């Protein structure tokens, strides 16, 4: 019997993206550069997060024509972003046959109370999270991949580190609890008990855990991998740097050889200027993207 869109099929693509780099691109030309540099997938969006930050205003799903252009330009998977709670943008992205939908805090949320019911879709979803409770709520809604939110568009990796450490730390802590305590943990995490029990038993999330938000250098990518992320998203970090093609190749190599310091020296050398960065701690509350979603 043939079945499409099973949980195994949806999660399976995330599993095949492990150890790879998913790069933000805004047009077909950037997508080609990303693919030629070894990106495992591209994220099609209208403006990279640092431009969204600079320009302000409402950030929305990209023009389908741009997404189609990118799909035609490359053979690697193409992802695209929908606003939090904007299930119609997600329906449009599904009809475009993007390979993954990112229900993303980088865009302006469309619903202040509800995320998208991702079970209602055949296309798989990735969602951001800052802690384990948020990750498990997204998984309960049908997300098949979790990424740290980090603080997109800053070039400051500190928030991504905080989020991955928080998620991994809370997973470890669940492993030390007994059955009664897991009930309380589920209540405190505001996450379904069944998922909490599964995570406590297996010591990991039931879907791949990737990292995003502020990754700007090969060393940042290797840092996230050593902290337990299984793959990295790089947004503004590539195409807002001085030499995107070279930096893209370097981040790809660093993600593969994340434990090999000699290789990290080699790939970190002479890359030119990184993106223009913002210190995440100095942003005002209303400038923070990671607080979007709940």
């Amino acid at each position, binding site marked *: 019997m*043939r079945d499409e869109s099973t949980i195994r099929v949806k999660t399976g693509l995330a599993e095949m993206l*492990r150890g*790879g780099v998913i790069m933000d691109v805004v047009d077909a030309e950037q997508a080609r550069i990303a693919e030629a540099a*070894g990106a495992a997938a591209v994220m099609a969006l209208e403006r990279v997060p640092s431009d969204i930050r600079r320009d302000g205003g409402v950030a929305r799903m990209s023009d389908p024509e741009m997404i189609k252009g990118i799909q035609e330009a490359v*053979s690697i998977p193409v992802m695209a972003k929908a606003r939090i709670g904007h299930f119609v943008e997600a329906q449009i992205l*599904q009809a475009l046959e993007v*390979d993954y939908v990112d229900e993303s805090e980088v865009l302006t949320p469309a619903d202040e109370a509800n995320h998208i019911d991702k079970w209602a879709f055949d296309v798989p979803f990735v969602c951001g999270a800052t802690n384990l409770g948020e990750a498990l709520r997204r998984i309960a809604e049908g997300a098949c991949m979790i990424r740290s939110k980090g603080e997109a568009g800053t070039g400051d990796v500190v928030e991504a580190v905080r989020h991955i450490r928080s998620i991994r730390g809370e997973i470890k802590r669940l492993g030390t609890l007994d059955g009664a305590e897991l009930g309380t943990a589920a209540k405190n995490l505001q996450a379904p008990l069944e998922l909490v029990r599964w995570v406590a038993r297996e010591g990991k999330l039931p879907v791949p855990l990737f990292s995003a938000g502020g990754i700007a250098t090969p060393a940042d990518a290797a840092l996230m991998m050593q902290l337990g992320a299984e793959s990295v998203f790089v947004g503004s970090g590539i195409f807002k740097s001085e030499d995107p093609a070279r930096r893209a190749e370097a981040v790809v190599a660093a993600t593969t050889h994340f434990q090999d310091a000699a290789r990290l020296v080699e790939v970190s050398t002479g890359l030119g200027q990184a993106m223009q960065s913002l210190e995440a701690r100095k942003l005002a509350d209303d400038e923070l993207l990671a607080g979007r979603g709940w």
Partner: protein
Amino acid sequence: MSVGEGGTGSADGRGPVIGILALQGGVVEHAQLLRACGATVREVRTPAGLEGLDGLVLPGGESTTMTLGIAREGLAEPLRRFAASGRPLLATCAGLILLDRDHLGVLPIACERNAFGRQIRSFESDVTVAGLDDGPIRAVFIRAPRVTEIGPGPPGVEVVAEVDGAVVGVRSGAIEGYAFHPELTDDARIHERFVAAVAAAGGGARDAA
């Protein structure tokens, strides 16, 4: 044999040493199943990583990413030599593409990438694999390729699995390649048979590397 869901897999077994090409892709699921079948697993990222292996897995992932990684690491020739040494080699999805004429050229086959469509057309299906006992396996196809052409060889290539008329499994001597992901289910029969074949080959061809 069946392996429980999840978990990070048991420690290395005392069995044969099997490498998994770990430039990018679905490495951990293969590692888990191979270890459960008693193998010692090594991740391979450089030509030096191929030394001392009794068998090799080319996993799923993005074939473009892996092909660029192979070029960057100078792995193409060492991988061809490994395949020619007669040691068992298991390739899944992108790994199968790597074996074809347009990539490593290990087998005289041509593959069509994303032959079933984009992710939304990814599927799972019961597939009978020739020579595998106890009925069909649940095969998971993720943006999967298919084999579109099989040349006369050498080496000779035999079709061992098909779905909807598409060739999705081939074998040539000790080399087996599948368009699907046997590592994404808890049915370990393909891995069990592969580990047994590696053990039987017993590193006798190791000097050829």
